[in-house]
């Protein structure tokens, strides 16, 4: 029997996988070929991906398939060899072990791959034994703070009041991280199983999955999975519900998340009391990130030791990273902790998409920082990353090349933060806005050398006077870029120069008369029609109305368009 699978995650669908699936469905002979849906396997750069199995053995992989390729694909089905260039061999998959392999809408496929065995096993153990096992595994929270999961569960278990609550945090707010989405879309039962084990271990009877509204497909598949697990009678005495977020980054913070579930504005509050003491509606509550929960079934099935053998002494196990930005092979990779950042980006990620050298890597989202190329040998552990000024965060990794301006990136994050600040603390609310304004001035060439001291001063004040981590870490993107890329700040301020050619106020487009052939292409494509010139004659850009969109530079085939920056001498 031949089976063909198509990866239908949000990324696959966005790349056109649904049309490929539909075309396959139209052309195959169901007598001989079985067509199945799976989800994202993490190799997003190859989407749409079609895989061919014969008697459950992988026989061929087709990348970047288009509907027109389907006929040829079916003809050569078994003649192609499975691609060996796949980076899967270099990965260590725990959390992602099923992603891309099973149909996320089928509980039986999950069960066939060992699903729900861990839940049954956990339920034969006492809650304290499960807590001990998780503690011994060394698992630390994957949502950002890296707190020991076993210890967190123990606090909730030790709290005598009831009823208790467990919550899966699927808010995935870091703009640029997508591992939680991929797991929820590709293997939703794993998260549910982890959550039910957490409920057993802490004695909770209500379970919630708090998920951001921007993930409609994940919500759809979760709903389906909840119906399946409930019909299979596996919920026991636990009620399980989805709560949809309403679009606020700060709601990923656990106390804000609970406020939002209670129907309030999602504003963080002071801790203690910690959620385990008094959480949702005052009940003892355990909140874990999706990836943390997704690791639980594996640990229970294979034992604490198998997990703690992976990784380093203080950072055990594996971690999923989402590679994006200017990286050649964007997607998800799951590696043992302790792997170097360089290995992950250069070997698994293929280096930069442009081929130009890596300038920096942003890790940890808005609370994180930029790690310069010179520190790429840093090991991927909580401690080593923190020493660079960045953080592990949720595992979002944005690769930047020479065409990325570091001040522009710092400005981007401060804009994000000042938008998303809940407004409770004055310094976070107004201080971040002031930092954003200063950075904007610098990118416009209106900066002053005193701005750097002002930025440093504000950073300290905001961090001291903010209640939650959003404010406390708000300055990190500025602090790390100032630490590693100070000369770029100085260039912007003193020389009015943006070496990455990003800051529009500091660059100028010109046409070199000796190279221009007068082909008229740039004039035709310029969106604001500010290029003049007769056919076969030299073209000229009217700088007064040029919007610096860069179209002329990208279309000219003769290299006649140039960009310049800095004070003209």
């Amino acid at each position: 029997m031949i089976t063909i699978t198509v990866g239908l995650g949000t990324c696959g669908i966005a790349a056109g996988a649904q049309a490929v699936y539909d075309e396959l469905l139209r052309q195959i002979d169901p007598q001989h070929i079985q067509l199945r849906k799976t989800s994202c396997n993490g190799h997003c750069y190859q989407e749409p991906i079609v895989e061919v199995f014969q008697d459950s053995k992988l026989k061929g992989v087709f990348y970047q398939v288009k509907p027109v390729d389907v006929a040829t694909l079916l003809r050569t089905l078994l003649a192609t060899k499975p691609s060996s260039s796949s980076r899967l061999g270099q990965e260590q998959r725990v959390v992602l072990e099923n992603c891309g392999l099973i149909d996320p809408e089928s509980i039986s496929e999950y069960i066939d791959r060992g699903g729900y065995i861990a839940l049954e096993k956990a339920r034969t153990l006492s809650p304290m034994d499960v807590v001990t096992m998780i503690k011994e595994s060394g698992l630390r929270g994957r949502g950002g703070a890296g707190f020991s999961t076993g210890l967190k569960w123990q606090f909730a278990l030790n709290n005598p009041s009831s009823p208790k609550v467990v919550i899966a945090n699927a808010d995935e707010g870091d703009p640029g991280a997508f591992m939680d989405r991929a797991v929820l879309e590709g293997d939703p039962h794993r998260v549910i199983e982890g959550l039910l084990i957490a409920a057993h271990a802490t004695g909770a009877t209500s379970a919630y999955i708090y998920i951001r509204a921007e993930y409609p497909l994940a919500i759809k598949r979760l709903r389906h999975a909840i119906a399946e697990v409930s019909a299979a009678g596996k919920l026991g005495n636990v009620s399980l519900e989805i709560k949809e977020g309403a679009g606020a980054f700060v709601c990923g913070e656990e106390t804000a998340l609970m406020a939002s579930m209670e129907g309030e504005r999602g504003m963080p509050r002071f801790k203690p009391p910690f959620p385990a003491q008094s959480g949702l509606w005052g009940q003892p509550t355990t909140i874990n990130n999706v990836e943390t929960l997704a690791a639980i079934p594996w640990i229970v099935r294979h034992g604490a030791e198998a997990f703690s053998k992976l990784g380093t002494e203080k950072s055990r196990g594996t971690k999923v990273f989402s590679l994006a930005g200017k990286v050649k092979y964007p997607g998800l990779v799951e590696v043992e902790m302790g792997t170097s950042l360089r290995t992950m980006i250069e070997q698994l990620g293929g280096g930069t998409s442009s081929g130009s050298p890596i300038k920096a890597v942003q890790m940890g989202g808005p609370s994180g920082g930029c790690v310069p190329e010179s520190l790429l040998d840093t090991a991927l552990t909580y401690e080593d990353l923190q020493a660079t000024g960045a953080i592990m965060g949720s595992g979002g990794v944005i690769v930047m090349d020479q065409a990325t301006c570091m001040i522009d990136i710092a400005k981007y994050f401060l804009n994000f933060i000042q938008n998303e600040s809940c407004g409770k603390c004055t310094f976070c609310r107004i201080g971040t806005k002031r930092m954003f304004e200063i950075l904007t001035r610098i990118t416009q060439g209106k900066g002053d050398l005193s701005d750097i001291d002002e930025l440093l001063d504000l950073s300290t004040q905001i961090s001291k006077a903010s209640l939650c981590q959003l404010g406390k870490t708000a300055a990190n993107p500025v602090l790390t870029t100032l630490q590693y890329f100070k000369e770029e700040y100085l260039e912007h301020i003193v020389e009015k120069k943006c070496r990455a050619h990003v800051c529009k106020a500091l660059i100028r487009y010109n046409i070199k008369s000796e190279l221009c052939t007068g082909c008229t292409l740039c004039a035709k494509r310029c969106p604001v029609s500010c290029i003049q010139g007769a056919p076969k004659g030299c073209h000229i850009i009217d700088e007064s109305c040029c919007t610096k969109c860069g179209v002329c530079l990208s279309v000219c085939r003769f290299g006649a368009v140039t960009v310049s920056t800095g004070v003209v001498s």
Partner: protein
Amino acid sequence: MTPSWSNLATELLQRFGDETRYAIPILQAIQTEQGYIPIPLLEAIASKAHHLQANQLYGVATFYSQFTFTPKGVHTIKVCMGTACFVKGAEHIVDAFKSALSIEVGETTVDGSFTLQTVACLGCCSLAPAVMIDGHVFGQVTPERVKELLKTKGFGL
């Protein structure tokens, strides 16, 4: 108060319940069904409810970016401005939509067909820059592809 708001308020309170914790689900239902949050409807709910007050509903609605107080267009375009999309030139995509539709971010075209928004991340960072139109995600969008996307028929998941 138009009678329809009053009836709708009663129906929503019956469907979800008269408790603070249902504020967001109620607002989400209103946003989906009406396309925006009509203030008179919030007032109608508050006048009938015991545990939901107008100021609380308004406070919640203004806090979360999902809620809007003006009617949205038939199609909603969400251009991703997450980090991955940003470094891959998402600003140029926003500019292209702005000039193709002659509106600013947050506005709706005069004919009511498109609303333009930006969002923080669609989870499709590997296909940056990404755009979501009515729940359907498009990857590797270029400024040139913008016009073609606007002509696409049959959006939706």
